[in-house]
């Protein structure tokens, strides 16, 4: 650890003296945590923390390396479970670096009292997901904590991938003239989990969208499209993914809000709860930024995987600050990073 790091100094931009749930929400508070604590403590290069995964060169081989921890309540939800998420989430982070997943590690923290049957179910989900994603789980670890000290199961997976994209896939390469393609409808995972957790029942069951993303990304790379940036739309949803790219690249993205596919049950649930589907988490959706000349063909390719794929935005211009703007009845407005989790409205 650098000797310049003084843990006693209050880090810039952090308020309060305790960790709140919102610090893990993926929005503004998470950024503050990274910028205020982790970057000063750990970063050696300027881009160390801007991406979901690190790009490494080991004896000439270009590799991507990433890690993620999974805490979800309930453990099982329509369309998946914590085991599915733990595989797809990490595989997808590798895919967003243009890397083919090679090997995963798997570490579980189990709470005393967890039903063995539940663990068995999770383990078989992990196997099925790893098979579907074409990746091997090669090493692992298990710890058990006292009852009440965990939420049943926490999982961490780390992933190693082989980068096959020729040019770096990073936000900084996104430029005016680029087009943004969204790989499918948004909002299903977050609403499915929230509905399950809070006991909401809707007419149509909403299933999580969790899915491995390497196949569509490999198809895009294989056809030689010049992918400037890829981003999977997990915590904070589509809006957060776009805003992070805009901030990192110093560009203004014009988002066509009406072009974003949100399925009817998710729209209904969001209207009732007063939450914005653009900010709801997904586990099997990504956006790709690439030159306009390649957009139509790339869209065609992605529609082979999901007919709901669509062009949802364009990069208008470079700006000093970076912004994502949408049209309204009375002019444009900018989207903002959410601070903390979205809270259902009162009335």
């Amino acid at each position, binding site marked *: 650890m650098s000797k310049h790091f003084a843990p006693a100094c209050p880090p810039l931009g952090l308020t309060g003296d305790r960790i709140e749930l919102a610090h893990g929400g993926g929005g503004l508070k998470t950024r503050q945590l990274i910028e205020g604590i982790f970057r000063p403590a750990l970063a050696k290069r300027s881009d160390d923390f801007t991406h979901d995964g690190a790009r490494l060169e080991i004896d000439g081989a270009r590799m991507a390396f990433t890690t993620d921890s999974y805490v979800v309540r309930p453990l099982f939800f329509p369309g998946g479970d914590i085991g599915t998420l733990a595989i797809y989430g990490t595989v997808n982070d590798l895919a967003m670096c243009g890397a083919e997943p090679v090997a995963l590690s798997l570490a579980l923290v189990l709470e005393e009292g967890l039903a063995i049957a539940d663990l068995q179910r999770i383990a078989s989900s992990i196997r099925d997901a790893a098979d579907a994603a074409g990746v091997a789980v090669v090493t692992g670890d298990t710890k058990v904590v006292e009852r009440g000290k965990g939420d049943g199961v926490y999982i961490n997976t780390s992933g190693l991938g082989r980068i096959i994209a020729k040019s770096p896939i990073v936000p900084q390469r996104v430029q005016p003239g680029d087009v943004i393609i969204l790989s499918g409808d948004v909002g299903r995972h977050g609403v499915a989990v929230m509905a399950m957790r809070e006991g909401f029942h809707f007419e149509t069951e909403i299933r999580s969208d969790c899915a491995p993303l390497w196949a569509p990304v490999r198809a895009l790379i294989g056809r030689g499209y010049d992918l400037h940036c890829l981003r999977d739309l997990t915590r904070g949803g589509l809006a957060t993914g776009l805003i992070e790219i805009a901030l990192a690249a110093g560009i203004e993205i014009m988002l066509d809000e009406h072009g974003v596919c949100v399925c009817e049950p998710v729209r209904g649930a969001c209207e009732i709860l007063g939450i914005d589907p653009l900010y709801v988490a997904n586990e099997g959706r990504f956006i790709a930024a690439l030159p306009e000349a390649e957009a139509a063909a790339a869209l065609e390719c992605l529609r082979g995987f999901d007919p709901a794929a669509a062009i949802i935005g364009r990069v208008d211009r470079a700006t000093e600050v970076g912004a994502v703007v949408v049209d309204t009845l*009375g002019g444009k407005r900018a989207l903002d990073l959410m601070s903390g989790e979205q809270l259902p409205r*009162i009335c």
Partner: protein
Amino acid sequence: VRHVDEYRDPAAARRYGDAIAQITTRDWILMEICGGQTHSIVRHGIDRMLPWGVSLLHGPGCPVCVTPASVVDAAIAMASRPNVIFCSFGDMMRVPGEAGTLFTARASGADVRMVYSPLDALAIARENPDREIVFFAIGFETTAPTTAMAVLQADREDLRNFSMLVSHVLVPPAMEALLSGPHNAVQGFLAAGHVCTVMGYVDYEPLVRRHKVPIVVTGFEPLDLLQGIYMCIRQLEEGRAEVENQYSRSVRRNGNERARAALAQVFTIEDQAWRGMGEIASSGLTLAPAYARFDARKRFPDIVVPTPNPSECISGDILRGLRKPGDCPAFGTRCTPEHPLGATMVSSEGTCAAYYRYRRLEAGEMALRRRA
């Protein structure tokens, strides 16, 4: 939820905008009461479609915003008791009192749980007979009926470990206070559609007569709001002052009679302090004597709340429509949703939060102008 898109259709919205421009011959100042309406207006840019000279002031209809800081502090003090499970709507958990927020109380060890309905709190009370469950009952006439139902249910089940910190407020007395205030500029109101769904609009009829001000019961979607504005301006231009109902797909003159009966049974009306607006006569609900045993203030008579410090926050003026967020030197700099100085920046229905979220480009320009 179907039937949403047709209330957001841009072409129809533009036709309404043109119709408003056609009937408008002079400047008018209208106020929308409800925070949900404010949110929709700012999000969709409705205010920018109106003719120059027609302005919308944003009213006090955000339940989170008008809950006094001292009540938030009472909530935090109750939540911090070791045996208490404190249940609150999510929106309320980020609102700062002097002693922090319910979120920071939770981070410090308090058992604070987010619920969607007081009935969820009742379920928690049944499951935890050894703990004291306190529900934070806030909101307007929209949420008060479910609070009343929860009290009646708790009474039937004789739940002894359940109580409520009640801070329900009523809309018509606040409108009366605004209209009788020395600085009132409001010439017409868009009344809150959801409140009227419960209460009807009989109570607005004396207001209209007394103050000669048109009141249009209005919904929340862009076309609802534009139609409400159109109806209100038409009354003003024609020199009329009546109660009209734009939100007729949901609102009846007498409202929801069963809900009103439950309110009348469980609550009595008393004077109540509003955050930023001070005490307003007959504007609050408190538990009627027959249900006083569910009053958390009586169950925890010894809680002490810190004295409020003076703040540069102008949310009182914002809530009365006297100033807009851009007039506040702290807006977007020292006061953000991340670090709010006042409740109007916290709630998703708060005016400052709506401006911060949807008008950030302009907020940036304002900040630059101030620095220059």
